[in-house]
């Protein structure tokens, strides 16, 4: 049977009293093609995916007009176990898509949902694990896998469902470039050799050239998506160069013989290094190598051996309450950072407790808010903001605190290039003006390379300074 997925004259809003996100929007998904959707954060990329997966308006929003047809039938009227065999989806936040404990149990769960014959379930799961090279993860607790590994499991689920249409909503937000290229390669095979339809949204358009058949862009003004020419994917390579080759010699933060483990696995062993003051460093390394754990150790959230020094004094005896005012950790998961309900309350709280309130006056805060394009969402509940808006709000809230040491863990994940640049503007300005020591973990390099002063590479249980730049 030939599949089709068609949107006819759709008008959709998040709530009764809110403006339309889509208006009189028509679209037909090119079947058996590799399709890419780009657009700034907060423009509604996730929303369109959830609409065509039949999750909205069931879970959120109001469809004011129009139809979304799966093989000619209104998708919201198709029962989930049938729908899943036609359209399946990978979510932006990989950790929250698993109901079961282990990889094996999760894929079994999916097959049971579609009433797969009982005696064929276990062989089928084993076959899928084999295809996706997930055998080593079969009985691992899903919550302990890295983001990249979790997305591979999620992709394995879509194979279990055998759905011809696979939607991927920003699936690479927290994934390193190596895993990203591998996953893209696997998706291409699925499309070419297995006739799957791929529809993927991404803020980052690198590696797609030559891979995709159609590129679409969210157009916020027109309230619909428009098709772009494939040449859009071409001239994206920016020259990589760092701002300054000389490292500042002034430093207030360093570590000696630092080491830590995750379970039995040693992640870092006997590392000694300092971070220059008033400059921005980039910390890179493969997925799961221990970069976030390193930040957790620096902020005293994780046990380590050796010593971390602030102004040449060992920090091990410093109370956590005091240390939290010296080292700030901007978490990978933005919502972990929020401690109030609304966006404006988060910023007000920071302004009230800022360590550099002389610098962060009302005017500067207001300017930063508008530079990050957050002015219109200040009255919203932080959790309801889009993934990208949450990232920007989170980073700003901590920047206003202005701890002398700032550790950013994937602050640009899911941001469009303009947002990356504006956020990087503010990070740079604050770091230089207040002589902070900033270190950033980021898989996203475009738009930040020219602002970063040095790079640290984490590999083989060591952290070394990259000299070539």
């Amino acid at each position, binding site marked *: 049977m030939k599949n089709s997925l068609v949107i006819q004259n759709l008008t959709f809003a998040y709530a009764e009293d809110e403006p339309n996100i889509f208006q009189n929007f028509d679209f037909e998904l090119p079947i058996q093609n590799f399709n890419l959707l780009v657009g700034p954060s907060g423009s509604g990329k996730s929303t369109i995916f*959830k609409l065509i*997966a*039949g*999750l909205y308006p*069931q*879970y959120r929003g109001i469809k004011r007009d129009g139809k979304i047809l799966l093989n000619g039938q209104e998708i919201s009227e198709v*029962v*989930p*176990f*049938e*729908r*899943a065999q036609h*359209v*399946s*989806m990978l*979510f932006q*936040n990989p950790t*929250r*898509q*698993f*109901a*079961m*404990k282990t990889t094996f*149990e999760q894929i*079994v*769960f*999916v*097959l*049971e*949902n579609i*009433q*797969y*014959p*009982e005696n064929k*379930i276990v062989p089928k799961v084993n076959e899928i694990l084999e295809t996706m090279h997930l055998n080593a993860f079969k009985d691992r607790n899903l*919550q302990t896998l890295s983001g990249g590994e979790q997305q591979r499991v999620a992709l394995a*689920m879509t194979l279990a*469902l055998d759905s011809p249409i696979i939607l991927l909503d920003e699936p690479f937000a927290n994934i390193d470039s190596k895993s990203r290229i591998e996953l893209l390669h696997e998706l291409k095979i699925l499309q070419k050799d297995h006739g799957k339809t791929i529809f993927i949204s991404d803020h980052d358009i690198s590696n797609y050239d030559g891979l995709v058949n159609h590129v679409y862009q969210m157009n916020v003004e027109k309230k619909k998506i428009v098709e772009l020419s494939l040449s859009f994917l071409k001239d994206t390579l920016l020259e990589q160069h760092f701002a300054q080759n000389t490292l500042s010699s002034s430093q207030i933060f360093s570590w000696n013989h630092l080491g830590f483990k995750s379970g039995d696995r040693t992640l870092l062993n006997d590392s000694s290094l300092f971070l220059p003051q008033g400059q921005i460093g980039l910390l890179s390394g493969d997925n799961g190598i221990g970069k976030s754990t390193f930040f957790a150790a620096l*902020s005293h*959230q994780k046990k380590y051996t050796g010593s971390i020094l602030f102004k040449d004094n060992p920090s091990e005896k410093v109370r*956590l*309450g005091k240390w*939290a*005012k010296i080292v*700030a950790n901007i*978490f990978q998961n933005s*919502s*972990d*950072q*929020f*401690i109030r*309900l609304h966006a404006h309350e988060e910023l007000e*709280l*920071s302004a009230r*407790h800022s360590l550099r309130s002389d610098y962060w006056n009302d005017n500067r805060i207001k300017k930063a808010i508008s530079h990050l394009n957050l002015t219109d969402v200040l009255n919203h509940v932080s*959790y309801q903001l889009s993934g990208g808006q949450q990232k920007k709000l989170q980073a700003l*809230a*901590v920047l206003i*605190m202005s*701890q002398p040491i700032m550790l950013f863990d994937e602050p640009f994940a899911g941001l469009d290039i303009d947002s990356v640049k504006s956020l990087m503007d503010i990070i740079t300005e604050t770091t230089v003006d207040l002589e902070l020591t900033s270190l950033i973990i980021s898989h996203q390099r475009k738009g930040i390379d020219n602002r970063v002063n040095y790079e640290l590479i984490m590999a083989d249980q060591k952290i070394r300074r990259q000299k070539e730049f």
Partner: protein
Amino acid sequence: MFTHRLNPAILLIIMLGIGLQITFARSFLTNVAIVIIGLSYLLYCKISIKLISIMILSAFPVALGSWWSFIAFGTSDVWHVGWIYASRVYAYLFLGSILTLTVPIKDILLSLEKHLKLSSTFVYGILAAFNLVSRIKTQYKIIRYSATMRGTEYHLWNPGLYLRIIIVALNWSGDLAEAMTSQGFTEGGARSSIYHDNLPFWQWLLSFVLILIYFFFSFIVRPW
């Protein structure tokens, strides 16, 4: 051998059938009998002595408290009532532990779904919640630390802390519900299942007989 163990559904029926009666029974000796039988079953299932000891010790303050309150403040037959209430705590404890200590939560839920027609939405909701427990613990630490970083202290008694945890959990559950739907989970829909367990007829009979025997002794014979 697993096959000689009781099915979780049967254990639940025994637990409810006898547990309800314990509430009304006024007999120390039948409570002791439950403790002895429960303990024997735990040992038969090779539950570690250490775990059993911890369980017994942790309930001790409760048992002592109810025993002492009857001795000190009760009227009429204070010793008898005191011992009934103290032993009742342990009777409940052992009755519960024959289910919860011998069968993993996943098997309990799947067995109840299969044999007692528990709704699958409930079963998978609870399972997902259990899988989230470790993350909630981590989340608690993260929230306290985030607050400290922003110059605010969240203490254990601070309602704001729990509000945050609830909001986070609600968000997780919302995302998870969407994910489960997209994975084909249908509320009230038919599913296949690879969960198989043994529920021979004699186990139904056993639960029925045990409940009746308990009824007979505690309400008709009524030993001390």
